[in-house]
């Protein structure tokens, strides 16, 4: 097992280099000159040239990428062009916000979606089942940023239960901070819950049809015991994969949700840095998010192998 983990981790290195290269390429062709963004459009050409040369923008693309990669390997991802601060520091300040939203959203989606899926499977083809199926499709079809705006409209503007905008860090005041996380996490989690509901339902139905469940029933066990004691664990197994794989989807969704709620997360940082042509920030933030995503996918694969002995990895 350890050998597999090490091999898979080594396999991540070329993927991360390729991700960096693609991001670097995109940033190189993006319209707009960082020197002009920093000094203004009416800056004298000589100053612009000097700044470009300071930033290394006058060197060939591959040379710039080589230097960036060399520094990145040593842990230096450069400074923000706009804020003149180390990029790594900026990302680490904002990563907890994004991860908190994603974790809360995952919990919300698994609890709601799991429960709804099981209920739907147990009441198959009855009104409850039809209602849950339609509701889960509605959840899947809703743009999360629109749901976010609706939640703001209802819970912040109309009923004033949650604060409208702003942010308090988790380590400053936990209770107040959580208030700022509730709506964005629900906006992101509810759309995913639709997906989880469908998956849990279908997996539960499949499990309930298995021989060992019939054996449990024929032993005279109560339905409650059959479902909770025998079927549930097997039926929830595919959820591990889906939750793991969807965390990346949540990371993408967080970009938009952070914009809606004005939360200082990595997603918002990336969008702002793109508009400010702050390339080192975009480059590093995308690398972090993509690395996180690939590592999570790897962990999902491995955890699945641990949970289901039939899955063997070569």
């Amino acid at each position, binding site marked *: 097992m350890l050998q597999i983990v090490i091999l898979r981790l080594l396999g991540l290195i070329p*993927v991360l280099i*390729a*991700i960096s290269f*693609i*991001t670097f390429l*995109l*940033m190189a*062709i*993006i*319209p707009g000159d960082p020197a002009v963004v920093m000094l203004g459009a009416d800056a004298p050409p000589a100053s612009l040239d000097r700044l470009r040369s300071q930033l290394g923008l006058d060197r060939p693309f591959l040379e710039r990428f080589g230097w960036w990669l060399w520094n990145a390997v040593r842990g230096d991802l450069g400074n923000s062009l706009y804020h003149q601060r180390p990029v790594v520091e900026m990302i680490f300040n904002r990563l907890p916000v994004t991860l908190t939203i994603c974790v809360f959203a995952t919990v919300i989606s698994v609890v709601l979606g799991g429960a709804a899926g099981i209920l739907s499977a147990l009441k198959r*083809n009855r009104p409850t089942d039809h209602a849950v*199926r*339609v509701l889960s*499709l*509605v959840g*899947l*079809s*809703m*743009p999360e*940023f*629109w749901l976010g*705006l*609706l939640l*703001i*409209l209802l819970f912040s*503007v109309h009923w004033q239960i949650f604060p409208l905008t702003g942010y308090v860090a988790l380590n400053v005041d936990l209770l107040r901070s959580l208030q700022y996380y509730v709506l964005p996490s629900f906006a992101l989690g509810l759309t995913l819950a639709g997906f989880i509901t469908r998956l849990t*339902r*279908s997996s539960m*139905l*499949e499990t309930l049809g298995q021989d060992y469940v019939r054996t449990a029933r024929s032993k005279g066990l109560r339905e409650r015991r059959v479902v909770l004691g025998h079927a549930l664990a097997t039926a929830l197994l595919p959820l591990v994969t889906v939750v793991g794989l969807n965390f*990346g*989807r949540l*990371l*993408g*969704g967080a*970009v*938009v949700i952070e*914009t*809606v709620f004005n939360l200082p997360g990595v997603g918002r940082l*990336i*969008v702002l840095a*793109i*508009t400010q042509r702050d390339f080192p920030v*975009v480059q590093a933030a*995308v690398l972090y*998010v*993509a690395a996180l*995503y*690939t590592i999570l996918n790897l962990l999902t694969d491995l955890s699945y192998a641990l949970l289901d002995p039939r899955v063997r990895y070569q």
Partner: protein
Amino acid sequence: MIKRLARSPLSVIGALFIVAFVVMTVAAPLLATHDPMELSIAERLQPPSTEHFLGTDVYGRDIYSRVLYGSRISVRVAVIGSLLAFFSGGLLGLVSGMAGGRVDNLLMRFADVLLAFPGLLLAIGISAALGTGETSIILALWIVYLPRFARLCRAAVLQVKGLDYVQAARSMGARSSRVALRHVGPNIVSPLIIQASVYFSEMILAEAALSFLGLGAPPPTPSWGNILSEGRDFMRLAPWISVFPGLFILFSVLGINLFGDGLRDVLDPRDSGR
């Protein structure tokens, strides 16, 4: 197949939503009550009324007409994006699965790299790099969905490739291209079509998200995402600006998903009822 689809009430509702959506898009100039770009400061932030069915925005533009015209961008992006990704991804997957070996390895590693980005993030990066506008969103979504189709198609090819009738065609001396196009291709179309309906609805949502972030069609051209985004600052004063375009997105995507579900039941009977 149509008969079986018609028996499922949810697919019929889905189909009705899709028809309404298509009519709205095609007949936008006939159905619109105002010029979607026409400014009228005197009528700014008006609530829904008989004059302006869905109210007006901060420049006094008619939201109903803007939403109708905005649907055109969503449809164009999703249709062209899905078709491009379906055919190019399908072809790459077919080649990869049929060829195997080095070609397969190379193509799939390339797909792995593209799949290592969260989809929306890659789309944001590509459309930012190519400049705002409809074409760059289409290209961005194409690049995001191409490896997804390729993967799916390759997996389907690998399943079919070992079956007896394909082996039989080979042993009769059929060329690889003939085996791929005549024998393997037609038998893997079903899962691709089912998945295409899922991706189509995802593209509508992604287009809205990109426009919402300001990467889509530049204002004053209406798109569902940018109308929604413009209404964000007026949620207290004029919630209708954001609420209605969102409802249109919801119902069109819901229609496609409902119909897609019905399609899955018909094309893949193993899963039906689940």
